[in-house]
C-alpha cells in the first residue's frame, strides 16, 4: 500500500470513530416518544458512510458488520419499523462493536473471538427482532407498494422514465442509465417516441425521449433510485414493483414479457376500455344516477369490510404482552405460595401475589378496552380539506381550527360519527356562516372560524362543532316547527328546546336537503347516530355570535349512563339518553281512554302512560297509591310516560349482554351488576313501547 493511501487510512479511522461517536450521541439524545426523522437519517448516513469507507479502504469485516446496522436502520428511517427502546439498546451495542472493530482493524488484528460471538448474537437479535415485531400495516396513504420492496428487494420493477427536457444541456449521459440498470438484472426496454414533437417544432437540444422499462432484479429499489438520482424530477419517474412471486400476473404483464407488447400500448388500450357502468349507461339499460348510487353502495360495503378490523399501535400490544408476562410470574408466585400456605411466609407471599394479581387484572382490563380506542383524529383529518373546498364553493373564507385530535374514542364511535360530523361541519359552513359581505357589515372579520374540538370529561367524550356565524334564528325555528306540527300552537318551548328542534326528523327544509343532496344525511341522522351511541346533543347559540353544537358521548359502548328506578321489588335502569324528565302526578291526572289505555296530558299533549309493574309482570300489579311517579321517555320520535315506584339515582353502569347468558327479552336491552352485587336489567325504551302497543292491541 502506498504512503498516500496509508494517510487516507488514518483519515478513515478518524472519520469512522467520529461517525460512531455521532451515532452514539444521536441514539442517546433521541426522544423515543417523538423521534426526529432527521436523527434517523443521520444514524443511517453514519452507518452508510462507515460501511462505504471501510469497504474502500479494505476492512471487509467492519463493512459487513456496519452493513447489518445499516439495513436495520433502513426500515426505521423509512418509518416502517419503530425505534423502540430495545432497538436503541441493540444499536448502542452495535456502536460499541464498531469501535472495537476499528480498534483492532487499526492494529491489523482480527476481532477477538469473544467479540466475534457478541457480534453474532447481536446480528441474530437484530434480524429476529425485525421478524418478531412486525409493524401494523401502514395506513393506505403511507403505503406505497414500492416502499416495502425498497428494503427487501422483490422480483423487480416496472419503470416509466421520461428524460428531463434539459438532459442534453445538462450533459447527462442517458445511455449510462441503461448500462447501470442492466448491471442490476435483466432489462426489457420499450422506447416511447410519442413525445417527440413535429420536426419543424423541434429544438434539437431538447430531450423528448421516454422509456418503459421492465427490470427483473433482486436488488432493492434504493439501488434503482440511485441510478436515476440526477434525472428524477418528481413525476417523470415512476418505479413500481412487479407483482410478487406467487401472485397471478396481470394479462398486461404476461403480454409484455411474452409478446413484447409495450406498456404504453397497454395503457392506451386500457384507457379505451370502458367501465361496466359506462357501458350499461350507453346501452340505455341504466341511468347514470343509479350507477353512482351503486358505486357509493359498493364503497360503503368496502368501508364496512375494512371497519371490521382494528389497527392497534404496536406499543399497546407490547404493553399487553408485558402484562401477560407479569401475570405468568404472579401465577407462579401463587402456585408456590399455595404449597407452603400453612407457613407464615407462605401466607405473606400469597397476599402479596393476590395484591399483584388484583393490580394486573385491573390494568389488563383497562388496556384491553384501550385496544378499541382510536384517536378522534381519524375522523377529524378529513375536515380541513372539506372545509376548504366548501368555503371555495360557497365563496366564504373559512378557517378550521381543530383541538384535541389525540382524544381517544371507541372505534365503533369513530365510524358512526363520520356522517353526523360531516353534516354538522357542512351545515356550519353552509348555513351557520354568513357570507363575506354580511360579516364585514356586522363588524366581524371576513374570515369565519369553525372550531372542531374533542375532549374527555368525567367519563364522557365531548365533541364540539362551533362556528362564529349568525347563530340560530329561533323565531324561524319556532315558526317552522309549528308549520310541521312538531310543537303545539300556544306552547312556549325554552331556547334550549327550540335549538334542539333542528335535529328533529322532518325539520330539515327542502332547501337544506338539496344543499347536501347525494349524502342522504339530514340533521335527524345526527341525532339518530348520537342516540344509538348512547350520547346526547347540546346546542348553544347566540344570535349574531355563532352556534356551538356539542355531542356528549359515553367513553365506550360498554358503559351506559343510566337512571336507576325501582319497580315493585326490582331495580331497572333507563338509559339516561332516552329520559326527558320525571315528575310526580296525582292519580286523577291520568285519564283512561279506549277502555284500559291510560294517557296523561302534558303541556297540551296527550302521552300514553305505561305501567311498568304490569308490563314487566313484577309486583302485585296493583298500584294503590294515588300519586304516580312518571318517567317521560322518548324514542324514535315517540314519547311515553313510564310509571315507576321510586327513582334511585343516576349512575354509570357496565352493560352485560343478556343474550349471551340467557336469551333475548323484548323490552330489555341488557343487564348490569349494581354496586351491591345485585343484577339490574337495563330497559330498552323502544322495545317497551312496542310491547305496550302489542299488549294494548291484545287487550282491545
Amino acid at each position: 500500500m502506498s504512503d498516500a493511501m496509508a494517510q487516507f487510512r488514518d483519515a478513515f479511522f478518524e472519520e469512522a470513530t467520529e461517525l460512531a461517536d455521532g451515532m452514539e450521541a444521536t441514539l442517546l439524545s433521541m426522544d423515543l416518544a417523538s423521534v426526529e426523522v432527521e436523527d434517523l437519517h443521520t444514524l443511517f448516513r453514519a452507518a452508510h458512510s462507515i460501511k462505504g469507507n471501510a469497504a474502500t479502504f479494505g476492512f471487509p469485516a467492519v463493512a459487513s458488520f456496519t452493513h447489518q446496522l445499516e439495513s436495520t436502520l433502513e426500515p426505521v428511517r423509512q418509518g416502517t419499523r419503530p425505534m423502540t427502546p430495545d432497538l436503541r439498546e441493540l444499536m448502542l451495542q452495535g456502536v460499541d462493536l464498531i469501535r472495537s472493530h476499528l480498534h483492532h482493524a487499526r492494529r491489523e488484528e482480527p476481532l477477538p473471538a469473544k467479540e466475534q460471538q457478541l457480534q453474532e448474537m447481536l446480528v441474530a437479535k437484530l434480524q429476529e427482532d425485525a421478524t418478531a415485531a412486525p409493524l401494523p400495516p401502514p395506513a393506505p396513504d403511507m403505503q406505497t407498494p414500492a416502499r416495502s420492496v425498497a428494503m427487501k428487494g422483490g422480483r423487480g420493477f416496472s419503470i416509466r422514465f421520461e428524460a428531463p427536457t434539459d438532459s442534453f444541456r445538462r450533459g447527462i449521459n442517458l445511455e449510462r442509465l441503461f448500462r447501470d440498470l442492466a448491471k442490476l438484472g435483466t432489462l426489457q426496454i420499450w422506447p416511447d417516441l410519442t413525445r417527440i414533437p413535429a420536426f419543424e417544432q423541434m429544438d434539437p437540444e431538447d430531450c423528448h425521449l421516454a422509456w418503459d422499462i421492465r427490470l427483473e432484479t433482486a436488488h432493492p429499489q434504493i439501488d434503482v433510485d440511485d441510478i436515476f438520482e440526477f434525472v428524477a424530477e418528481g413525476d417523470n419517474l415512476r418505479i413500481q414493483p412487479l407483482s410478487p412471486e406467487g401472485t397471478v400476473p396481470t394479462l398486461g404483464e404476461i403480454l409484455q414479457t411474452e409478446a413484447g407488447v409495450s406498456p404504453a400500448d397497454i395503457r392506451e388500450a386500457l384507457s379505451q376500455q370502458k367501465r361496466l357502468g359506462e357501458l350499461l349507461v350507453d346501452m340505455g339499460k341504466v341511468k347514470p344516477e343509479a350507477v353512482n348510487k351503486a358505486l357509493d353502495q359498493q364503497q360503503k360495503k368496502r368501508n364496512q369490510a375494512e371497519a371490521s378490523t382494528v389497527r392497534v399501535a404496536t406499543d399497546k400490544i407490547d404493553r399487553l404482552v408485558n402484562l401477560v408476562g407479569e401475570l405468568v410470574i404472579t401465577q407462579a408466585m401463587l402456585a408456590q405460595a399455595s404449597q407452603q400456605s400453612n407457613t407464615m411466609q407462605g401466607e405473606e407471599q400469597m397476599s402479596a401475589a393476590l395484591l399483584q394479581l388484583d393490580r394486573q387484572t385491573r390494568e389488563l382490563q383497562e388496556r384491553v378496552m384501550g385496544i378499541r380506542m382510536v384517536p378522534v383524529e381519524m375522523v377529524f383529518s378529513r375536515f380541513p380539506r372539506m372545509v376548504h373546498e366548501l368555503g371555495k364553493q360557497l365563496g366564504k373564507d373559512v378557517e378550521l381550527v381543530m383541538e384535541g385530535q389525540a382524544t381517544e374514542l371507541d372505534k365503533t364511535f369513530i365510524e358512526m360519527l363520520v356522517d353526523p360530523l360531516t353534516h354538522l361541519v357542512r351545515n356550519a359552513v353552509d348555513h351557520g356562516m354568513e357570507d363575506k359581505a354580511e360579516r364585514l357589515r356586522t363588524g366581524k372579520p371576513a374570515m369565519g372560524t369553525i372550531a372542531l374540538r374533542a375532549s374527555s370529561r368525567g367519563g364522557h367524550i365531548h365533541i364540539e362543532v362551533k362556528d362564529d356565524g349568525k347563530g340560530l334564528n329561533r323565531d324561524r325555528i319556532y315558526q317552522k316547527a309549528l308549520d310541521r306540527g312538531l310543537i303545539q300552537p300556544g306552547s312556549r318551548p325554552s331556547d334550549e328546546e327550540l335549538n334542539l328542534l333542528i335535529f328533529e326528523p322532518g325539520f330539515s327544509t327542502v332547501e337544506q336537503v338539496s344543499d347536501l343532496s347525494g349524502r342522504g344525511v339530514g340533521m335527524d341522522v345526527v341525532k339518530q347516530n348520537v342516540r344509538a351511541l348512547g350520547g346526547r346533543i347540546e346546542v348553544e347559540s347566540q344570535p349574531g355570535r355563532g352556534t356551538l353544537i356539542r355531542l356528549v358521548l359515553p367513553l365506550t359502548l360498554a358503559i351506559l349512563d343510566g337512571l336507576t328506578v325501582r319497580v315493585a321489588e326490582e331495580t331497572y335502569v333507563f338509559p339516561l339518553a332516552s329520559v326527558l324528565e320525571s315528575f310526580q302526578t296525582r292519580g286523577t291526572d291520568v285519564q283512561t281512554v279506549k277502555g284500559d289505555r291510560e294517557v296523561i296530558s302534558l303541556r297540551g299533549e296527550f302521552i300514553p302512560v305505561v305501567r311498568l309493574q304490569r308490563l314487566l309482570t313484577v309486583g302485585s300489579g296493583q298500584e294503590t297509591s294515588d300519586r304516580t311517579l312518571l318517567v317521560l321517555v322518548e324514542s324514535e320520535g315517540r314519547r311515553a310516560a313510564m310509571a315507576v315506584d321510586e327513582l334511585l339515582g343516576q349512575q354509570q353502569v357496565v352493560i352485560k349482554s343478556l343474550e349471551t347468558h340467557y336469551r333475548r327479552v323484548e323490552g330489555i336491552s341488557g343487564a348490569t351488576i349494581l354496586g351491591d352485587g345485585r343484577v339490574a336489567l337495563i330497559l330498552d325504551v323502544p322495545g317497551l313501547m312496542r310491547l305496550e302497543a302489542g299488549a294494548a292491541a291484545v287487550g282491545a
Partner: protein
Amino acid sequence: MGRLILTVDDSSTMRQMITFTLKGAGFDVLEAGDGVEALGVAAGKKLDLIITDVNMPRMDGITLVQRLRALPEFKFTPILVLTTESDASMKQKGKEAGATGWIVKPFSPEKLLDVVNKVL
C-alpha cells in the same frame, strides 16, 4: 488515452484527495483553485468531466457552471457540483445552472468514483 477531468476547489487538501482518487482510477486530472482560474485552465481543452466546489472566492461554482454552459465546447460536458447535505437547495440551483449531477460532502473516494462513473 486517459480521460481528462478538471477539478475546481479552493481547498488544496480537497483537490489533492480528488486528484489522488481519480488518478488512482486511471483518469488524467487538471486542477483549479476557483471559477476564474477554472475558465482559464479549461479554455481550448477537451474536457470529459468537470467537478467543482460551490463556495469559492472570485467566482463560485454555480456561476462557473453557467459560464461553461454558455461556451459551445462545454455545452454538453458533464459537470458535477460538490454540495453539502445541509444545503439541499444547492442541488436544485446546480441543476438550474446546468449541472449534470452532484456529490454530497463529505464523500468517500468510493462514492466519488461511483458518481463519476455514473455521468461519464
